[in-house]
């Protein structure tokens, strides 16, 4: 009976849906996390009687056909790249992007990764680095006797050097855009890499040409809305249960047939 397989595809889809939702909830407090939603599609149909087929020699055509669907499949888990709320931390090296753009991070192997998580620190050489110790691009080194680090909306980093009353610009943190940021590949550690789907990275300056601006002393929170995740979770669980019910109903039907003519 086809219904059994159809319901099985439904159960598999809802299982994946729960996985995606639970990952969103697990990352509720992950800085710069972007939530995912599972997207589904119906499978191809078996056309038992094709709609519009001729039903008589007089040219009568069938107004409706008999189309039996084969279930559901997962087409993807698109990432929702909406802005997360900014929470103030007061740390000089905590940066958040409001609007478009990612921070560009140099990896030990020379490649680049991109992140919305602006929890930066200083390493032993005075460089601004991520929590993993990888430098933010372009690399900015803060002199060890400097004080009063300030990052402007454009990403300009300035410090006050001893014996000086005015601040000195020591570099500019860049932001990178992608034409399809939802096509970036997550690699863990709150970071993404470019893919053929995301398009090539476009480095630019914050607060210009449609790039977002940088806010110092703030971090971007995950864009997960816990209430909607919980309601999605309930919906997914109920859908799973319904598919399980279909399986037991189909099983019962088959049982009544096999019980015949003992």
């Amino acid at each position, binding site marked *: 009976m086809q219904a059994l397989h159809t319901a099985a595809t439904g159960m598999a889809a809802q299982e994946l849906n729960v996985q995606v939702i639970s990952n969103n909830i697990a990352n509720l407090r992950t800085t710069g996390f972007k939530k995912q939603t599972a997207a589904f599609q119906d499978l191809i149909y078996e056309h038992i009687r094709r709609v519009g087929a001729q039903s008589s020699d007089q040219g009568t055509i069938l*107004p409706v056909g008999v189309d039996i*669907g084969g279930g559901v499949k997962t087409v993807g888990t698109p990432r929702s790249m909406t802005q997360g709320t900014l929470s103030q931390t007061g740390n000089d090296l905590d940066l958040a992007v409001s609007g478009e753009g990612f921070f560009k991070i140099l990896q030990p192997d020379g490649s680049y990764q991109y992140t919305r998580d602006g929890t930066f620190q200083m390493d032993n050489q005075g460089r601004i680095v991520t929590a993993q110790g990888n430098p933010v691009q372009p690399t900015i080194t803060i002199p060890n006797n400097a004080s009063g680090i300030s990052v402007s909306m454009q990403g300009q980093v300035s410090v006050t050097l001893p014996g000086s009353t005015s601040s000195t610009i020591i570099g500019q943190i860049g932001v990178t855009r992608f034409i399809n940021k939802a096509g970036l590949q997550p690699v863990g550690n709150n970071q993404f890499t470019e893919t053929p789907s995301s398009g090539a990275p476009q480095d630019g300056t914050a607060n210009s040409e449609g790039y977002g601006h940088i806010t110092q002393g703030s971090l971007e929170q995950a864009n997960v809305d816990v209430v909607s995740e919980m309601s999605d979770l309930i919906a997914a669980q109920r859908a799973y249960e319904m598919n399980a019910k279909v399986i037991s109903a189909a099983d019962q039907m088959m049982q009544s047939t096999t019980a015949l003519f003992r």
Partner: protein
Amino acid sequence: MQNALLIGLARQVTLERQMDTIANNVANANTNGFKADRSLFEEYLNSGAREDNFIGSDRRVSYVQDRGTFRDVSQGPMEQTKSPLDVAISGDAYFAVQTAGGERYTRDGKFSMNNVGQLVTSDGNPVLGNAGPITFQPTDHDINIAPDGTVTVLEGSGKADSIRGKIRLVAFDNPQRLEKLGFNLYGTGRATAQADTKSTVQQGFVEKSNVNSVAEMSRMLEVTRAYTQLSTLLQQQSDLHKSAIEKLADVPA
């Protein structure tokens, strides 16, 4: 006497198909833009019952067959996603999608962008505007989709809206004639496409599946009960047959 068996069997086959349809509806309870199917049955009169030895003329035997699956084209519930590229249609129209096999139609408005900035479906097929696919520039931001489908953006540091196209909405004289192709797509089938004038779109929303789970569950119960009942009927018929053979062939001692 065979007629009861055959009629019962005909009904069981249609019930099985109805069950398959329900299973597909339930499996797609979370599929964006999915429209539920319903089974339709009709009486099929077979002329001349061969084993009908009752008084009078031949009676016609009434079988059942499934005439079609009828699509429930009612509006699905709208879910707010806040994603700027998600669009839901309020009304009877469909989005036009460009696929390798030609133009197809969908109600699934969970769109994204591809690497060249085109507005695409989850499968990567471009969504058609009134003048071809809708393409964004690399520096576009603040995408806005008006209720009539006009897509505007702010370009670079510009402050004025730039138009990127207008999402094409297509209506059909008889949406029942659209052919379900899977992948959330419809083919034209025998329906005639025409430009839609009444429907509106809403940005930041997705139309969910219009499957009514409670109704599906009760329909499923009905189907299982009817099916089991028929199995019992077949069993009883067979028992009757058996005892008739046994009794008639019983040689009196």
